[in-house]
């Protein structure tokens, strides 16, 4: 397992996407501004959703959908609802934080990061592991339950009641979820033929676009760490680096029980391990405004995201291989 892990880790660390991420992170840390203009960054993220969703749908159409999809969707929903509870507990043990901040951070770790998901699928391709196309749909399902659970925690603990309706519709109508699931359905409808029609856009340049996007993400993350560093305690940083492994291990049995392939298990573990940094922060500004963005954003984007990209994904893959492969 160790050998396999080191091979995986170096293949991952030396792949162009991860190296561009490191370039952006290091550049931002040194004070350079490598971020893409905001409208472009937003478009690239829509492109990634569209491409990954469509390809997932086309793959799902090719292999047919059955009860395994339903089981995986339910597993995803359970994970997204359960992980915040664990995160909330761990945060209580590892750092001194007001309840609202704890609840807000917990929501981020229960939800997911689509870019981490995309990076995981690219890594699977690099190491030659297959994964189920319908995991795209599982990713979409995992975005929201965590938010509800976190709001529930916050309202129980602090008595604060928030307008769940507004927050949920904000998240559901969020362009990334709609594009992801919409493209998945279109991919299912048009199948292989549709894929062939737009291959030149969603497959040919895909990995390169991912490099450009990760350059930007690295720069954003590097900035986040640079400016958010002061507000962090050792306990919080430790949480951001340990929690993903806890989540990944929680996801492992669900992956096995869902009958996923080895690659599929690794991807599900990565989903569980990833933390949101776009949809959930916006929801928190509406639902829990007292919670400080400087804390949840720095943790999820500045620490967890880079850790998952570089070390996390190969570790989860090695574990999935060891257990299931």
């Amino acid at each position, binding site marked *: 397992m160790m050998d396999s892990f080191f091979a995986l880790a170096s293949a991952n660390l030396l792949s162009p996407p991860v190296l561009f991420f490191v370039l952006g992170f290091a550049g*931002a840390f040194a004070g350079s*501004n490598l*971020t893409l*203009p*905001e409208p472009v*960054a937003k478009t690239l993220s829509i492109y990634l959703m569209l491409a990954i969703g469509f390809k997932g749908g086309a793959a799902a159409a090719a292999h047919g959908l059955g009860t395994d999809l339903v089981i995986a969707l339910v597993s995803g929903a359970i994970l997204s609802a359960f992980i915040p509870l664990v995160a909330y507990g761990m945060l209580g043990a590892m750092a001194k934080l007001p309840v609202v901040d704890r609840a807000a951070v917990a929501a981020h770790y229960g939800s997911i990061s689509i870019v981490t998901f995309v990076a995981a699928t690219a890594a699977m391709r690099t190491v030659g592991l297959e994964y189920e196309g319908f995991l795209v749909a599982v990713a979409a399902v995992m975005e929201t339950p965590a938010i509800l659970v976190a709001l529930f925690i916050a309202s129980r603990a602090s008595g604060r009641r928030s307008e769940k309706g*507004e927050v949920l519709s904000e998240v559901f109508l969020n362009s990334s979820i709609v594009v992801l699931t919409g493209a998945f359905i279109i991919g299912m409808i048009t199948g292989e033929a549709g894929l062939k029609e737009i291959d030149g856009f969603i497959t040919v340049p895909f990995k390169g676009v991912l490099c450009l996007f990760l350059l930007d993400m690295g*720069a*954003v993350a590097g*900035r986040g760490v640079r*400016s958010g560093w002061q507000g962090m305690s050792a306990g919080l940083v430790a949480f951001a680096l340990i929690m993903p492994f806890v989540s990944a291990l929680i996801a492992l049995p669900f992956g096995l029980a869902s009958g996923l392939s080895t690659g599929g298990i690794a991807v599900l573990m990565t989903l569980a391990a990833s933390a949101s*940094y*776009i*949809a959930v*922060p*916006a929801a*928190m*500004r*509406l639902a829990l*405004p*007292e919670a400080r*963005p*400087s804390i949840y*954003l720095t943790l999820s*984007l500045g620490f967890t995201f880079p850790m998952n990209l570089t070390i996390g994904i190969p570790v989860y893959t090695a574990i999935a291989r060891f257990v299931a492969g």
Partner: protein
Amino acid sequence: MQTFPKKQLTIIFEKPILPRMRRLLDAEGVTGYTIFPALAGRGTQGAWDSEGTLGDTGKMVQMLCVLDGDACDRVLDHVFGLLGGQIGIVTVQDVQVIRPAHF
């Protein structure tokens, strides 16, 4: 040209609550408002920059609303209610307009 005194209410606040703010102003029946994007800034809660920020979290916008003195007081009350835990500042200025009926 004859001019008439009005108040200009300026609110700088975080972008994620923009829909709420618009609903509030619509409910108050102000005749109009305009929203401008901000680029960067600093406040008691630290500095921010729209470049290198993902999504709306951390971005600020400016809402400008020209209205009657009375309406201004009423709207101010509600705006303060809304801004509660949120990030933002509010100012009021005197302005002159030409077509008072429009506001």
